[in-house]
């Protein structure tokens, strides 16, 4: 029995197989409509989530399975003081697979150590969010036809953004990746990613503050939100805030086949005028999130079409 706790739990080859399956699901959804008939997914969400929980529910429903669960700690026995260990033992009796989101880092790992069903980490605090990373990889591979040999721009809050850290860790396993790290000085990539991942792996990267300067060279632009409260002073925020809002003028500087991704929710960092640009793929990305979760559920349950 396998779990998915970290984005690196699967090898590059296993990820390829998983993404091949996701692409086949996209092309032939009817072939997979009943592969999980009679199976139950437990969504154990200790904190509110819209997209991830709905994406998991949509994935299981599209496979013919059923979903049970809770969507906040207040609605679960955690409110009575039940441990994660006990909750997963209980859920193992009710369901065949579980997706867990928890505000505390490492909670899904604890669950996996005591579970008799596969556990998927659906986000544990600021630590890991592996299905978002798988979604990002599938989106890039599906739309660019490859995961190596490209320049990837990561823009916004690179210090606290867990999706950015996970994506860097996942992409450095492919050859010919170059990163352009675009952020205000306060929100630069943490030193442990710069030193232990990029420098140690001899991965080419440049750091810059201005998005416009970076635009012409990017194959992928991965946007994240820059929050006012992350700045140490208001003056600096006002000076920088417009720099990280992607609008039509900045899009005009980008390559014709560039793809713009965003883990969503978007607030104001991507102007709505960009939504109609064919290079804006963040809503398609959400769709790929369902396909990759379908492929993941099938893989962990070891089911395949008849």
């Amino acid at each position, binding site marked *: 029995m396998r779990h998915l706790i970290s984005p690196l739990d699967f090898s590059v080859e296993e990820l390829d197989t998983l993404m091949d399956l996701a692409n086949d699901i996209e092309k032939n959804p009817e072939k997979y409509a009943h592969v999980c008939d009679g199976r139950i997914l437990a969504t154990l969400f200790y904190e509110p989530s819209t997209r991830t929980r709905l994406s998991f529910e949509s994935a299981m429903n599209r496979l013919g399975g059923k979903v049970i669960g809770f969507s906040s700690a207040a609605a679960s026995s955690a409110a009575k003081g039940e*441990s994660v260990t006990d909750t997963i033992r209980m859920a193992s009796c009710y369901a065949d697979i579980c997706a867990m989101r928890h505000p*505390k*880092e*490492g*909670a899904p790992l*604890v669950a996996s150590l005591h579970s008799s069903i596969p556990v998927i980490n659906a986000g544990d*605090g*600021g*630590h890991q969010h592996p299905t978002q990373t798988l979604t990002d990889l599938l989106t890039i591979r599906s739309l660019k036809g490859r995961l190596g040999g490209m320049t990837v721009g990561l823009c916004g809050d690179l210090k606290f953004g867990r999706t950015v850290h996970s994506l860097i860790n996942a992409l450095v396993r492919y050859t010919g990746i170059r990163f352009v790290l675009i952020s205000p000085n306060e929100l630069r990539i943490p030193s*442990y990613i710069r030193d232990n991942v990029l420098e140690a792996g001899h991965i080419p990267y440049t750091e810059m503050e201005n998005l416009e300067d970076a635009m012409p060279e990017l194959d992928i632009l991965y946007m994240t939100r820059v929050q006012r409260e992350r700045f140490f002073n208001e003056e600096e925020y006002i000076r920088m805030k417009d720099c990280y809002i992607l609008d039509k003028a900045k899009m005009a500087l980008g390559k014709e086949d560039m793809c713009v991704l965003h883990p969503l929710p978007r607030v104001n960092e991507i102007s709505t005028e960009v939504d109609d640009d064919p290079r804006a793929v963040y809503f398609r990305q959400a769709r790929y999130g369902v396909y990759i979760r379908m492929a993941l559920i099938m893989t962990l349950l070891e089911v395949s079409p008849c």
Partner: protein
Amino acid sequence: MLNISGLEEGIVLDHIPAGKSMDIYKHLGLGHLDCQVAIIKNARSAKMGRKDIIKIEGGLDTVDLNVLGFIEHKITVNIIRNGEIAEKKTLRLPKKITNVIRCKNPRCITSIEQELPHIFNLTDEEHKIYRCMYCEEKYK
């Protein structure tokens, strides 16, 4: 020269950096042992200038060498049998340590689930970096 009687059977922890013997005494739980334990502080050492030494009467099972390896892996461990050094153990940084140090990350699951063991993995031997198994926070 201070004279402390030799051991017939037991362990001598030698080359402890001066001043660290009480930390080791505490971490190894030597206060809970019924056997004789001698702590020698600031002994003269040709190699180190000053060093601490701990002598523990009894078998090897009285000391968790994993814990010792984490605290100070350059310590020499001499096993004494029949009054002589029968064996010298080399300490290594343990790959995993359980319930020796605690995760201080307030966002870690160990902060709310009191009965979870605090487990740290060695992630960088050169820089002696241990990370919490659950949240991967570096131990400082």
